[in-house]
């Protein structure tokens, strides 16, 4: 198996685009994720018609700005304004916003009473409460899942040029071959993902929300899952694996709340969300960032590992079946 592993490292040197993405682009994207997560955004803006800004307003979540006419709707869509308010004759405000009912009522309260309701949490506050580390790892989760498939490129290549059959005809079985692919992909995802985070944190003292040890453990769990997923995809699909993996990764990561917190009352959606291993991972990440210990998430961790095991087992069984059917 070590020979196979060594051979993989030797071959990947010649896949310069894969190496470029893994060793340069991934770290750059991770740095960008850390930069954006650490960088405070300007406050959301409420546009108020004709300087009707109440004088005694105290708010840390919104900036109030006077405008001479109602902004176009596109200005709400692109985020220039969070809301537009126009004072009515009775002293209340008519409010136009894309936000939900609760936000609308909070803005009304802000403009009429000068304060937001005590229990109100705007989008920025929610993001802040989610934690910098959770935001960073949420973004990285999607990147790692996509990257896993790109790094498994040697496996489909071996199948298409016949070297897979040749390797299996040597004293080496498909379990050993796939184990070597697994270890290879794991190392190739883990090292360029962990290194930039560790360097940024250790050298520049940038806040990442976790200790280095926690990041090391969490990333290991994530990369084990991503590797298993990649092996499964690479076994099941013969072509367009990158495109398929990107589609699946983007959709599942959104549902799992990797980018924004997802809360739903719909039981079907909630059940679907819960089935996705990334959801358990995000819960674990959030918990660890806010001081809980790993034992409290033992079922979640076990679920992620079981899913990984399932993907690997499926990958091996499909590969075995196809070998027997002479497809490879």
């Amino acid at each position, binding site marked *: 198996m070590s020979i196979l592993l060594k051979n993989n490292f030797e071959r990947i040197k010649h896949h310069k685009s894969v190496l470029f*993405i893994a060793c340069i682009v991934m770290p750059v994207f991770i740095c960008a994720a850390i930069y954006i997560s650490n960088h405070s955004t300007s406050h959301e803006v409420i546009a108020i018609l004709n300087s009707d800004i109440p004088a005694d307003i105290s708010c840390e979540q919104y900036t109030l700005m006077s405008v001479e006419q109602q902004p176009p*709707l*596109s200005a709400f869509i692109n985020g220039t304004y969070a809301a537009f308010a126009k004072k009515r004759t009775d002293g209340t405000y008519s409010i*136009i916003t894309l936000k*939900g009912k609760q*936000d609308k009522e909070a803005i009304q309260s802000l403009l009429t009473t000068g304060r937001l309701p005590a229990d109100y949490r705007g989008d920025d506050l929610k993001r802040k409460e989610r934690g910098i580390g959770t935001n960073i790892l949420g973004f990285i989760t999607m990147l790692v899942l996509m990257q896993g498939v790109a790094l498994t490129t040697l496996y489909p290549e071996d199948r298409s040029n016949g070297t897979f059959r040749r390797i299996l005809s040597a004293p080496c079985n498909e379990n050993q071959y796939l184990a070597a692919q697994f270890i290879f992909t794991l190392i190739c995802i883990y090292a360029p993902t962990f290194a930039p985070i560790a360097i940024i944190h250790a050298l520049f003292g940038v806040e990442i929300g976790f200790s280095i040890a926690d990041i090391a453990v969490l990333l290991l769990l994530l990369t084990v899952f991503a590797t298993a997923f990649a092996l499964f995809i690479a076994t099941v699909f013969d*072509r367009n694996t990158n495109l398929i993996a990107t589609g699946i990764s983007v*959709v599942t990561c*959104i549902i799992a709340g990797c980018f*924004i917190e997802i809360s739903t009352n719909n039981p079907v959606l909630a059940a679907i969300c819960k089935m996705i291993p990334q959801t358990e991972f995000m819960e674990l990440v959030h918990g660890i960032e806010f001081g809980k210990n790993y034992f409290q998430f033992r079922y979640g961790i076990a679920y992620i590992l079981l899913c990984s095991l399932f993907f690997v087992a499926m990958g091996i069984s499909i590969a075995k079946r196809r070998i027997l059917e002479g497809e490879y």
Partner: protein
Amino acid sequence: MNLLRILRQDLGNIIHNPSLIFSNTILPLILIGVMGFVTKGGFGTEPVSSFDYYGVNMMIFSVSMIAITATNAFMEERVKRGNFRIAYAPVSKQEIYLSKILSSYLLSAICYGVLVPVCQYVLRLNMGGSNFIYFVLLLNVFGFCGCCFGTMFCCIFKNEEQANSIMQIPLFLSIILGGVIFQIHRFDSFLNRLSWLSPVKWAADCSYQIIYDNDLHLLYPVMIGLLVLSFFFIGVCHILFKPEDYI
């Protein structure tokens, strides 16, 4: 005439690739559904629901991804050798790369030409009401630009794997800077200035104006900008595409 024949063959090749068809028909709807559903709580129902918002944004996102269809139409392993055999026939080199651009463009024109009215009139999402035709027009030009972009990467890297891997970087950067996944307006001014380099941002801002403001002011400048960019990409294809590199 030969261009039409190659074009028909290329379209046939794309149709025989279920992943490409899926990613240009069902996937945009899934993305709209998923994004709309999971962000429902953060939006009101009027004037714009989460489904309206992500309907437009995911449509732009999906059209951006047409570049991947173009690279696949050109150099996917199963069609690559056949595609380059064409070079032996009496066809000019521009007919070869233009057919890939046009076939993937036609796919996007057909798919999104159907998807937008379906979203508007069947799914009742706001795609501009009677203005939806301008949105479709913009997506057409934007899609064409994406196809030229994808084909250009094939001409540069001469290999689908490399073209797709490297192309994903500027593609995703443009998408993120375009603000179609999350708004970037409130990030610092540097990021904001940078976002104006992204054609996705041009298309997104223009779409918002068409759909939500009933304003067509940006339509022609953006379309001209996208076409200029497309011709630049085609120019690069013309300079770099050499059939002998593929034999």
